[in-house]
């Protein structure tokens, strides 16, 4: 059953990746609107992912999403300052783990 689930996940994922190429086998013939979407959708999609990763935080109850807010601020601050992906992700995650395990 685990194997079947993995295969279904693989098929679903492949579908999202191949569909545009199946629908528009000839890139030039794709409508202008599709090219416009191709330009503006990626940043919008990344924003959606950011929101997605915050979906389970409850701001109404303690600790009011404070560990997430602090850790994300650390990630963003470090990344803007040092522009080092590993440092931003590593330090941010370590901070988050400390916050949820020991502080809150």
């Amino acid at each position: 059953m685990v194997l079947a689930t993995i295969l279904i996940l693989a098929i679903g994922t492949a579908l999202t990746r191949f569909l545009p190429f199946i629908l528009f086998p000839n890139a030039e013939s794709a409508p202008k609107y599709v090219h416009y979407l191709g330009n503006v959708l990626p940043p919008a999609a990344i924003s959606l992912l950011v929101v997605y990763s915050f979906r389970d935080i409850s701001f109404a109850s303690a600790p009011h999403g404070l560990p997430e807010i602090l850790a994300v601020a650390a990630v963003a601050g470090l990344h803007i300052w040092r522009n080092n992906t590993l440092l931003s992700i590593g330090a941010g995650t370590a901070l988050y783990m400390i916050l949820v395990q020991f502080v809150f």
Partner: protein
Amino acid sequence: MKTLAFKSAFPHTVPVLTGFLFLGIAYGILMSERGFGVGWIFLTSSVVFAGALQFVAISLLTSAFDPLYAFIIAISINARHLFYGISMLKKLGDAGKVKPYIIFAMCDETFSILCSAEPPPNVNKQAFMFFVAALNQSYWVIGGVIGGLIGPLLTFNTYGIDFVMTAFFVVVFINRWRADGNHSPAESAEKLSVRIRSFSKTGLKPPVFCERIAAHGIFQHSPALIGLGAATVALLIFGADNFVIPAMILIIVCLTLFRRRV
């Protein structure tokens, strides 16, 4: 010739190397915590190869078999790949034999590299794109396997390690924001100044905020901001479990309206 393409592709993938090894290790640790051995991790990372989905699907793999739900989750989390595919139609148009693999392995990072990186003129473009995609996937698979191997040996509490995904998305968001800012400030300022000029023909002074927006080049960031706004609204209305598809629809509607206005 292939060695040359490999050598010119590799430097572009170094940031992904560190990020994917780290994320992959975290994924391997989480999987091994749920009782999955290295074989399962290797298989999943090889055939699914979608970071966000793989993290989300860990709980799916341990719960009762529900193929329809698994399929819907896979589609909705990865629906953004539709966007990437649309963006890559032209670039991959003549990729030949390696085209199916590149499409299969088009993750966020491979997409962002292929968007901007161009191989040197003496390097085969197809081979270059292939190696970018294949190297990135190999980092992810290797990271997962390492995580699966060391996971059972870890003695410290790994609670909260799933935050790597959030941190990762925030980093991708900032990188993308920067790239959009460098993109074509002139172009969007031009668009805006045309509007301001047509506005001044009416004899009225254009609103100050228009010039300010033009100066800051906020237009390049509109898609990102629309994404944030629409996704948040959808989350508030539909709740954590059902908001991805409505958010995507709302994003497409907003971007379409935005196109008419600009």
